[in-house]
């Protein structure tokens, strides 16, 4: 019996050691660490590919030398299909595959974070900004580099309320829309007079004309649409189709190529659409982002939107969301270096709070013990479409300082 116990203990120790390695060795004796990307590749390919490619760009370049040896990274994609259940199953697979960290679009995080937490694996959310997704106390392994819904909603309120508009708040019934509704409620709580009407519309509705008409009859002089890209396109189509030239504001989904693709037959309908997103350039200028964009395009090619400017130039989508997953991989690499390797998972998680890197847009990226948000709320800017491309607005102090990113090819 004692010998059986000894063997079991030995087996457990060996298993722990094997799990601790979390990667494989290349021919040059460098160890390769797996980074899982859990994103909706099949349902919203733009989002999924952007996240994976940003991570892949950093992973290809990062080499971390530690006392445990030299580490490189490789990326493995797990498709959530926007299903929380699949996202959770993917998280289990990623941990079982020995992923050192998981970069996640955000779907299903409320259930999946615990799987990673039990294995002391950091999760980096790089798209969804839901208020409750990140909590340094209750979810110490969850980090985010993406604008928060809270920050976006408050910046939108800060921008719109002084314009004395009567805003029709439109959200769809997707989880993205419902998270946005929570943030918008908080942001406009102290200025209820600015809100003409609140509407929740079905995310897959073929025609949103009745809802848009309700907003118009309620006296709305602007629409703030927090929804999936197809819903945004539907709202714009319904408004413009009825001859209503109401200004439309959105969160970052407004820049999703899908919106322009769906409105490609009426390019003028897109003109004036204003969205809030994380700034792609910082005060230091466009240099860092252009350098990142060049590297990105050299490796993955340009992201063509599929529409053209009025003078016939092809429109490309700047890889602004890709920079978040790119930055997360770099922060992870810096944390591994600080922790001296990956074998002590708790030390690696602690190191995630202590390091900063220069982000793709020139901003400092990092987390701390109080805050696991890598994009501060101040960094939300506003951009307006004109001729299928967008540029920062001039009537907001932050946006006015930012350079225009070329989107023509």
């Amino acid at each position, binding site marked *: 019996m004692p010998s059986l116990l000894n063997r079991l203990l030995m087996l457990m120790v060996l298993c722990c050691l094997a799990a601790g390695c979390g990667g494989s060795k290349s021919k040059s004796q460098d160890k390769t660490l797996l980074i899982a990307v859990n994103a909706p590749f099949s349902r919203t390919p733009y989002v999924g590919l952007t996240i994976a490619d940003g991570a892949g760009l950093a992973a290809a370049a990062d080499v971390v030398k530690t006392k445990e040896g030299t580490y490189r990274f490789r990326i493995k994609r797990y498709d959530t299909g926007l299903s929380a259940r699949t996202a959770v199953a993917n998280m289990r697979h990623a941990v079982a595959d020995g992923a050192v960290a998981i970069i996640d679009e955000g779907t299903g995080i409320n259930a999946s974070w615990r799987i990673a937490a039990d294995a002391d694996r950091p999760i980096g959310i790089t798209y969804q900004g839901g208020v409750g997704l990140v909590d340094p106390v209750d979810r110490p392994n969850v980090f985010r580099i993406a604008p928060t819904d809270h920050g976006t909603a408050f910046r939108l309120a800060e921008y719109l309320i002084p314009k004395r508009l009567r805003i029709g708040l439109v959200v769809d019934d997707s989880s993205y829309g419902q998270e946005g509704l929570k943030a918008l409620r908080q942001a406009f709580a102290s200025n209820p007079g600015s809100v003409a009407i609140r509407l929740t519309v079905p995310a897959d509705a073929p025609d949103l004309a009745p809802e848009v008409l309700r907003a118009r009859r309620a006296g709305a002089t602007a629409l703030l649409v927090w929804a999936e890209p197809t819903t945004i396109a539907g709202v714009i189509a319904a408004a413009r189709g009825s001859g209503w030239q109401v200004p439309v504001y959105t969160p970052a989904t407004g820049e999703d190529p899908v919106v322009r693709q769906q409105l490609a037959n009426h390019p003028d309908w897109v003109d004036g659409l204003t969205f809030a997103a994380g700034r792609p350039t910082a005060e230091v200028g466009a240099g860092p982002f252009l350098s990142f964009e060049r590297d990105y395009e050299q490796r993955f090619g340009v992201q063509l939107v599929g529409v053209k400017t009025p003078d016939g130039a092809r429109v490309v989508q700047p890889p602004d969301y890709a920079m978040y997953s790119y930055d997360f991989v770099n922060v992870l690499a810096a944390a591994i270096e600080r922790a001296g390797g990956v074998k002590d998972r708790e030390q690696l998680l602690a190191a995630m709070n202590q390091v900063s890197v220069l982000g793709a847009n020139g901003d*400092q990226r990092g987390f701390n013990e*109080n805050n696991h948000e890598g994009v501060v709320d*101040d960094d939300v800017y506003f951009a307006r479409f004109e001729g299928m491309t967008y540029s920062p607005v001039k009537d907001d102090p932050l946006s006015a300082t930012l350079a225009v990113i070329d989107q023509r090819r």
Partner: protein
Amino acid sequence: MKRLLVTIGATFAVAVAPQAAIAEPPVVSLPWPPTVLPHTPPLAPPTEGVLPLSVRFLGKVACRERVVVGLEDDGTPHSVRALQTLAVNQLGDYVFAVPAPVRSVLPGPGTESPPGRRQNQILWQGFSPGHRVLAAWADLRPAESLGSLPLRVRVTTEVDGARLGPGEKRSGGLRVTLTAENATVATARSFTAEPDPVDLAIVLGRIRSAIRRDVFAEGLNVRLHSSMTPVEARVAAPLKIDGTLTFAPGTVQLRGARGGVVHISGLLDGLRHSRLRVVLRGRATSASAPRLELRVRTGDIADTVTPSQDQRTRLAGTIALELAYARKRQYDMFLASPDQAGPSSTTYVYRTSAAPRPAPSGVGSGGEGDHALGWIVLGLVLVAGMPTAAVIWAHS
């Protein structure tokens, strides 16, 4: 004509250059405060090292601080909390870290952005639309903070000649002694010499101007017409003190203490007058030790330089003014300001309060120890419980 003037000027310069080079007296800087004065305050935790963030903000930041020192009944400090309020008055990005031995950091009143925390750092990052207030409450580790406080306090409460213990109440002849001592005194390396009068006047003007504007004095160089003789200078930050000693209502009879409240105030320049001692005598009726609350701020620097003084005396007075002002600025910045040369002020509040209880070991650690203990308990329960359960089941 222009060419002629240039030629004459060049000729003159060549002619006088060798003489000027020979006669040129040496130019020296007044003692440089960062090297001749103690390095703290502002607090600089020993493990701080190089900040991981590159500081990004070139504009002026105004700093205001409130440092709350918790005291035992006898004046022994047990806790330090600091509220730092920074006013960023410029459009643009800001990224900076304030070094501090922090245990926790919380948003302060009126802050327009939440502070971050790292090991020995308070972090700030964001965008200022032209004006932005950043405020944080920092709970500091006493061991690394208490030594940099400007005032040492001692309170002795005796009833019938015997000391009153913590929480103890007694009746009889009361004697309370409060001692407050300026702890900012330091010795700095300095010098004496025969300075150039014009240079000295310029330097003195710069120091006085910096004092008026509450900024760091710079450009303090003078030519000397004699060799330097090293001397040591005593330097201190003057402290203005005011506050109260408060006894529980109806428990003491003290002359001049209406409602059991004794007002205290004083100015401790740290050199001629560095200690305040207050002795109170009266009657105690079931009295406990009084509660002390002192507000301490740095006071005005004494400017003793006059035109009638000889140049050596004027130099000594100018250096004393420079170093005293630098020492005062150190205590006006208990936590470092991101703009070390900018305006700053600090109010220290010394207050009797219950010492924070140390957390029981293991609680809140969140470490494996908690789980290990749980597993051990579970194991013992199973070991003891299963045979018992089996016996009960067998006989049921």
